[in-house]
Structure formats: structure tokens, C-alpha cells
């Protein structure tokens, strides 16, 4: 982990300003973060502290108002919208709290979605989809629609969708936030395995100390400061 010089994510002095009416809200206030390649980082902190905002900046879903975001040596805050979208498709796997599967598509078609943006043929796409569903243990559920799956299963489909393109980094925003203990553990086991066995770099936002305990490092975000210990 930290002894590796191979820094994958470098967030430097970022701030994000939101407008609420006439009022400006500074969310991150100059945060710094470095993530080595292969790290499993847990990000904790009170609600509204800016965890999702930070995650979005690293995933190129949003742009910083101040500062720089570098992933794999690339200044993604400088990319055009179009380039950024392409970059996301190739390098980022996203896992959401509420799964965000398309209800009209089967598990298999949901997992296939990011592959539609590649040049893979239908047959190749199917192969990748089957592999990803295999990793999350849902091969036999490929033809099910989200509503036919439990929360834990839907989240596993979400993870399969996130890993199907073999991204550089997995960004998970409260992936177990809506799940019971058992399902949470399954998801956490899966993420640990992806990190340990496949060396995936993972950043996970969570409220749950149990979940954070599975990560290789935990950071606390509060009032725009990232700390290794929670504040009083």
C-alpha cells in the first residue's frame, strides 16, 4: 500500500463550489489525496461532508472548481466533456448505493451497457458479460430483471457492470448502504477479492465501520479536511 511509489490517483488542493441561491458553498476546501495503485481505500465522514463530491471528481463525473485531479498521470480536470466520457468508459467502474441498474434490461444487458461503447462484437461482449457475472456469482441470474433480484444480487450485478470493462479503478459510493448485514458481507467479500486477487484499486465511501475495516486504509473527511483519524 503506502510504501508503493506508484501513485495512481493524485488529488491536489481541490475545492468544489456549489451555489445555493445567492450563497456559495465550498465543499472540499483544498483537499489533498494520493492513492497508490492497488489500494483499497475506505472514505468515511459525516453526511454532507463531500465524500460523494470527491468520488465524482476522481471519477470524472464532475470537475473541481479549484485544484487538479490526476489519474494514471492524466490531468482529467482538463479533458473536454467528450474526452472525459470516453476516459470514464475505459478507466472507471462505478458502484452506487442504489445500484442504478436500468429496470428495463436483464442483468446480462445491464452488465453489457458499458461494452456498447467499445468496438467489441456481440459475441465478444457476451463473453465478457458472462465472465463478469461469473465473478460475482450470478451466472444463473443473467436473464433476470432487476426487480426479480434481491438488493444484494442487484448490487452484485452493479459490480459486474463496473468491472466488465476491466477499469483502472473502482469507485463505490456507499455500496452496502442499502443492504442488510449478510448481503453487505457478500459485497465486501467480493470487493476484497477483487482488490486482493485481481489487484483492483478501489475507493469506497461508507458509513459503516465494519465495511471500512475491510479496506487497506481508511480516511475521514470532515469540513473539507482528510484525516487518518475521525475528529471528535
Amino acid at each position, binding site marked *: 500500500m503506502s510504501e508503493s511509489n506508484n501513485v495512481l490517483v493524485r488529488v491536489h488542493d481541490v475545492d468544489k463550489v456549489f451555489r445555493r441561491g445567492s450563497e456559495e458553498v465550498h465543499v472540499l476546501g483544498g483537499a489533498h489525496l494520493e492513492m497508490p495503485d492497488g489500494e483499497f481505500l475506505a472514505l468515511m465522514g459525516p453526511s454532507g461532508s463531500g465524500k460523494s463530491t470527491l468520488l465524482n471528481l476522481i471519477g470524472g463525473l464532475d470537475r473541481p472548481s479549484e485544484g487538479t485531479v490526476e489519474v494514471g498521470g492524466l490531468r482529467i480536470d482538463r479533458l473536454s466533456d467528450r474526452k472525459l466520457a470516453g476516459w470514464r468508459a475505459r478507466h472507471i467502474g462505478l458502484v452506487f448505493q442504489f445500484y442504478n441498474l436500468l429496470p428495463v434490461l436483464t442483468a446480462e444487458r445491464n452488465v453489457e451497457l458499458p461494452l456498447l*461503447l467499445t468496438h467489441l462484437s456481440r459475441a465478444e461482449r457476451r463473453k465478457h458479460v458472462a465472465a463478469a457475472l461469473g465473478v460475482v456469482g450470478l451466472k444463473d441470474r443473467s436473464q433476470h430483471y432487476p426487480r426479480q433480484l434481491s438488493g444484494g444480487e442487484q448490487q452484485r450485478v452493479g459490480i459486474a457492470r463496473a468491472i466488465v470493462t476491466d477499469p483502472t479503478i473502482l469507485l463505490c459510493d456507499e455500496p452496502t448502504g442499502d443492504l442488510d448485514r449478510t448481503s453487505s458481507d457478500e459485497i465486501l467479500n467480493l470487493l476484497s477479492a477483487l482488490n486482493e486477487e485481481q489487484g483492483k484499486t478501489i475507493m469506497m465511501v461508507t458509513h459503516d465501520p465494519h465495511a471500512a475495516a475491510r479496506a487497506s486504509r481508511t480516511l475521514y473527511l470532515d469540513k473539507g479536511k482528510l484525516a487518518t483519524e475521525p475528529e471528535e
Partner: protein
Amino acid sequence: MKYLHLLWRNLTRKKLRTVLTVLAILVAFLLFGYLSAVRQAFNMGIEVAGADRLIVRHKVSIIQFLPISYERRMEQIEGVADAVHQTWFGGVYQEPKNFFAQMPVEPVEFLEMYPEYVLEPPEYEAFLNTRTGAITGVTTAERFGWKVGDRIPIEATIWSKKDGTRTWEFDLVGIYEGAEKGTDTTGFFFRYDYFDEARAWGEGNVGWYTVRIDDPDRAAEIAEAIDREFANSPAETKAEPEGAFMQGFAKQIGDVAAIVTAIVTMAFFTMLLVTGNTMAQSVRERIGELGVLKALGFTHRGVLGLVLAESCLIAVLGGALGLALAAWLVSFGDPTPTASLPIFYFPARDVVIGVVLIFLLGLAAGFFPALRALRLQTADALRR
């Protein structure tokens, strides 16, 4: 094409809404397609009218007669190649609703003037050799199940015979085809010599003339020369190009083209609102999902394209079904019980316009929803 599944699944998400929208579009395009055929029917002849033909009628009205002697006089006018006459017979076959036009003509000259009436050589010979012979177009022959060799009795309403009877019997010697799709194949033509000799009155008078001119560009000038020739005579004439003549005929019934255009325009705008509303709802419901697509790496334009494609897909479904249904209905032919629309088909030009309209509808209806999808900020959309 790989997005087709996604588009289709999105359309079938709210099945009832999609079906109703598609049905509404279907009806609009059915209306468009069918009315195209109606408009074409009313424009009949105008488009197939020979540019090198003039119609010469009595200046007062078409029902007034012109002397047969005019034929020779017109043929002597510079620029006139040929003149043939026709006369409205106006007889009834079995019952008045079985309407079709009947005209006595000079066989050789007439068929030379109207090469679009195509007759087999033996039938042509038979027409020349049979004094009571008549020819008719395939449409009328099929309508009454006539075959060559049939004897067709027609009850006169205008032209009683010298022997005091009113029933004229004709021997059907030929059935002509139209050279073009728009050719009128409902006419019934018989021999003028037989007619002139047997009619009780009006000998030597004909209804109107068709005149072939050497140079279509000089049509106006030649028409004037013809009218001048007969000015200040008991039967003054009015000569005009065949197309204008037909148009004048159609205008008597009403400006059908304008009415049809108005109806179709209204239907089209209604569809625009219906489809636009469907797309707006559909996008509103899916803001979060569109955000997810963007998060996964779909570009702003890619998402715009998906919304527009979905809108076009609805329009294509409804439009194609509507046009197909219209074509099917039109294929049954003239819908009027009196067969008063002799030319009834779905013009190719209107099929093309229909297809263009389908895509215009799809793009226009999807425009604002697509714009909304385009502008959607990824992080904001995910936050909902």
C-alpha cells in the same frame, strides 16, 4: 444497431402509453396516405395531361355543342397537328349508380390522339371493323365483369334513337390498358358514325374537341388563334391546355388539394404534440437513468442520440404501419359507390413525402426532450 435493444426496451417500458402513441401516429399517417390518393384522384389527368393537347369547347359551357365542321377548320390553323371530337353520351348501364363516362369517337384518330390507351392489335382491328363496336378500360370492364364479345345495352338519357327507342346496344370488341399508372381506364368509347346515324337529333354536332399542337411552348398562342377563328360565329369556342381544363373540372368540386393539405397539417401537428408529450414524459421519468448512462461513459451527444432515436422509432412504427394500411386500403381502389374517382392509387411521390414526414415528426417531437437529456449534468442527475 447495438442500441436497438435498449431503445426497444425503453419503448416497451410503458406499453399502453407507447401503443396509444403509435396508434395515434398510425391514424395520422393512414389519413395522410389515404387522402394523398384522394387528392391524386381529384388532380386526375392534370399530371398525366398531354402538354401538347388542347381542349376546345363551346365558349358558354361544355354542354353546348360545336359543329363537326370545326374539325377541318381547326386543322388548317398554323401549329395544329390534329383535332378529334368527343361527345358526352351520358347513358345508364342497368342503374344510375353504375356511372362511367361514354363517348362516341372516330376510332383511328381518337386512339392516335390518346396513345395512353393501349389496345391489342386484333381488338383495334375489330373496333375498326365493327360498326356497333365499343372499347372500354380495364377498370370498368372489371367492375362489371365484362369480356370481349359481350353485348352491352346502355339506356340513353340524352340521345334517343331515330326509331324512338332509347336502348343502345354495343358490342364490346376491346379492353384497353393504361400506358401509365395515372391513365384513366374507366372510359367507354364507341363509334361516332354509328352514333351520328342512329341518333334522333343533333346530327353533325359534337361535344368538344381535343387538339394536338406541334409545339407545347406555343399552346397559349395557338389556343388564341383557335378562339379567334370562331369568334363572332354562333358557336364561339374556348380553347385551353388539357391540364388547365381538367383542373377547372376538379375545382368545380372544391379545392380538394387545399382541404387535404389542411387536414393533414392539422393531423401532423396533433401528432407532434402527442409524440412530443410522450417523449417528454419518458425522458422526465428517466433522468436518473440517463445520468447513469453518462456516468458509464455515454457522451452528452450519445444520450441525445438515444432520445432522438427513440422518438424516431415511435414515429417509424406508427408511420410505417399507417402508410402500409393506407396503401392496403387504397389498393381496393375507388371508394365512391358511383366510381367517380377513376384514378385511385397511392402516388410514389406521396410515399416519399410520408417517409420524410415520419422522420420530421420523430426529430421534432424528440427535440426538446433530447435537448434536456443533452444538457443533463452527470453528477446532478445521479444525485436525484
